[in-house]
């Protein structure tokens, strides 16, 4: 159980950190000053979630390690995030749609996790869930704004949808450890989250006048540590200092 939970919290932490790290790349480069602030705010929340999950994961390891050890001293094959969170930031439409998919997922994930039999996990989920509501309100409003405005914006968000859609099923993948945690009432049931996600996202895409792509490569692999080429570069940048100056305090 301890080992299962340690693995699962890593999945949660890695997902939040890679999302937050990508969003942080927008700092100083957003389309509006207000959006610059909003994007970094969401990034900050996500990295905060990652920090809490890493602390849980680290405390359960033998011997215990710190949150920073887990974030900065693991290689790409040890990361457990779904591939969608490590994809490059792309343009504002791509960032917005990716964020919307993740925000809807996080909303149902943390809602369900808030009733976990594991107290600490439930507490973290309650705190994260509060913040995710605001993230979703923002990304949903922007999806609508981009879809129902100019031809250029619509073309860009449609392109983002074509590029991202088949990365979404991986969000709901589970492994044996997660299934055991779900059976024990610790982790949420991912099949339910998938249903909720589809019931919210698909009609919304239709409302936005966007067309779901019919075929493409369906992403998978994150749970087994199989990643895109992008993650290595992200980690090289993010982990540079602790790797170059091992054992130092910062």
């Amino acid at each position: 159980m301890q080992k299962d939970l340690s693995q699962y919290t890593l999945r949660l932490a890695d997902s939040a950190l890679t999302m937050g790290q990508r969003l942080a790349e927008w700092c100083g480069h957003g389309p509006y000053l207000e959006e610059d602030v909003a994007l970094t705010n969401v990034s900050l929340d996500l990295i905060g979630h990652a920090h809490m999950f890493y602390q849980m994961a680290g405390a359960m390891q033998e011997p215990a390690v710190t949150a920073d050890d887990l974030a900065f001293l693991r290689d790409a094959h040890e990361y457990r995030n779904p591939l969608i969170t490590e994809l490059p930031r792309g343009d504002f439409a791509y960032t917005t749609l990716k964020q919307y998919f993740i925000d809807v997922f996080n909303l149902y994930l943390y809602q369900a996790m808030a009733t976990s039999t594991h107290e600490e996990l439930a507490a973290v989920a309650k705190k994260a869930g509060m913040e995710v509501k605001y993230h979703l309100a923002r990304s949903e409003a922007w999806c609508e704004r981009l879809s129902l405005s100019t031809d250029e914006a619509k073309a860009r968000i449609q392109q983002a949808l074509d590029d991202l859609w088949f990365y979404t099923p991986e969000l709901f993948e589970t492994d044996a450890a997660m299934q055991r945690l779900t059976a024990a009432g610790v982790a949420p049931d991912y099949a339910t989250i998938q249903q909720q996600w589809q019931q919210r996202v698909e009609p919304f895409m239709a409302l936005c006048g966007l067309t779901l792509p019919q075929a493409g490569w369906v992403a998978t692999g994150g749970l087994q540590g199989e990643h895109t080429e992008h993650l290595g570069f992200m980690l090289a940048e993010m982990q540079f200092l602790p790797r170059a100056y091992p054992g130092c305090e910062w």
Partner: protein
Amino acid sequence: MYSQGLTDAKGQAEPEELMAEFQAKIDREEKIEPRDWMPEAYRKTLIRQMSQHAHSEIVGQLPEGNWITRAPTLKRKMILLAKVQDEAGHGLYIYSATETLGVTRDQLTDELLTGKAKYSSIFNYPTPSWADIGAIGWLVDGAAIMNQVPLCRASYGPYARSMIRICKEESFHQRQGYEIMTVLARGSQAQKDMAQRALNRFWWPALMMFGPSDKDSTHSAQSMQWKIKRFTNDDLRQKFIDATVPQAEHLGLTVPDPDLQWNETTGHYDHGEIDWHEFMQVIKGNGPCNKERMQARINAHEAGAWVREAAQVFQQNQAKSNSEAA
């Protein structure tokens, strides 16, 4: 006469009675508010100074933003994100305060991007190492506080009020910068060296942040009379040096000025001559990062044009459908 040489927007001499009343109000330490009468030159001075300040906050995101993705711990990453976000927020308040003087943010942004308006020259220096993030917090935000605390009492109400909140946040930024330096200075030899190099890099540019020496400062006398400015450039610079040198000593770092020494008689530190040629060069656009910084802002603005247009069109469509429904 207060009105000596001052003309209004149409080039007419400002009415002496209004000028006298205006100055008397300032002398009574009452705030000038957006609807109050003010001489055109006061308005212009404020627009110039406040927009430069706002632009500095915005361009200032870049050298620090440079290290967000490489911050060495999760805590440092979160603090830096929050800090840079604060700077963007300061930009927002000050742009809003400047708008009360009758200009729009779009106009001001345009002036920045076309090179017509200036921003603090400090942000044209590079941040090649993590220690530079510490040095910026400690020295650059430290110098900014020296400049800005007196602005909390500036005669123009909206500017003074925005400064109160900004100064609170800046003082937190300064402490976090000093804390980064403290950890580095107590760390490995490589970390100490990193900290020393950052101090070497930012010491002189930080001193230049107070502007030209009093004898060469063109805007000072009038701004002092209008209580937009309360202390001279050299006074503030000296205050900064006196406060900062002991902090460097506490860290075990060496201030890169061989002429620096305590003067018992004056009760201040004497310091070496500032390289004003370098200062003028950076202001003219010939600093190490002027082109990069400006290009980054232009790129963000241009890449975001379709987003701003989409938001505007969406809003118009919404308004139209609302009025049709009504």
